[in-house]
């Protein structure tokens, strides 16, 4: 059940765009919720010691937030039947200003027979794409 009429969709059509503010608080919250307590996600000294430019957002936080653009479009988190990303660039989270992640979703492919739409997600931080091949297949 969905409000989306698959016949009216076109490849390349934008389906949504959301700006996510990732702060250090967001990282601590994600660490607790996911159980990923790698210290590079909350300690500047540890991040520096392993040669990173700063504390990084969990790749899985970026992945989890980005798919919300597809979820919001279809209205049901359970409609995402297949979701993949490649982690290509780090998201450095400033202790004061955080990091702004801008996610845009576009129709990548339409499978009218099975009513599955591939949504291609573009996640940009500081003018750089941070995810590669970010594709969510959504069952309408």
């Amino acid at each position, binding site marked *: *059940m969905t409000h989306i009429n698959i016949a009216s969709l076109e490849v390349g059509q934008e389906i949504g765009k959301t700006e996510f503010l990732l702060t250090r608080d967001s990282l601590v919250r994600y660490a*607790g919720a996911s159980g*990923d307590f790698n210290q590079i996600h909350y300690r500047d000294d540890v991040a520096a010691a392993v040669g990173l430019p700063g504390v990084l957002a969990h790749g899985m936080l970026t992945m*989890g937030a980005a798919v919300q653009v597809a979820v919001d479009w279809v209205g049901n988190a359970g409609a995402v039947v297949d*979701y993949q*990303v490649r*982690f290509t660039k780090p998201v450095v989270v400033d202790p004061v200003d955080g990091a702004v992640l801008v996610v845009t979703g576009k129709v990548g492919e339409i499978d009218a027979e099975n009513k599955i739409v591939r949504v291609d997600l573009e996640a940009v931080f500081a003018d750089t794409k941070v995810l590669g091949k970010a594709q969510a297949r959504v069952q309408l």
Partner: protein
Amino acid sequence: MVNPNVQGKKYPATDPYLVGREKIREFAHAVKSTNPMNLDVFAAQAAGYTDVIAPPTFAVVIQERSLATVLADPEADIDFSRVVHGDQRFIHARPIVAGDELVSELEVASVKSLGAHSMVTFETKIYDFEKELVCTAISTLVVRGDE
């Protein structure tokens, strides 16, 4: 270097993980979800689910439990401090629902070397209490070698 001989190695099923409603809500807030299916029992039930459903990437929590057994396996010889997450995929047979009791079984799908680095791909199958497949999680870790 990761031991190439662990390619094809299967790890035993993890202990069951009981998916809690508040855990789903906590995870949903953490990934900035505002989807009522993740948060509101009545909305989820109106859509035909028995309880709130998890966001699409929640399966990582279950995957990590299997991954932890591999990282603790001396035969695999994976130095966690050198690990970078390369890519991730979740193929869902159905969404994870609050109340599910899930186990996962991990297989090392491939070990490749890329210069001094190793790329290890894990395939984790997540099953419910009835042994029905819920999700297949595929994860590639890059293990940095000595520069």
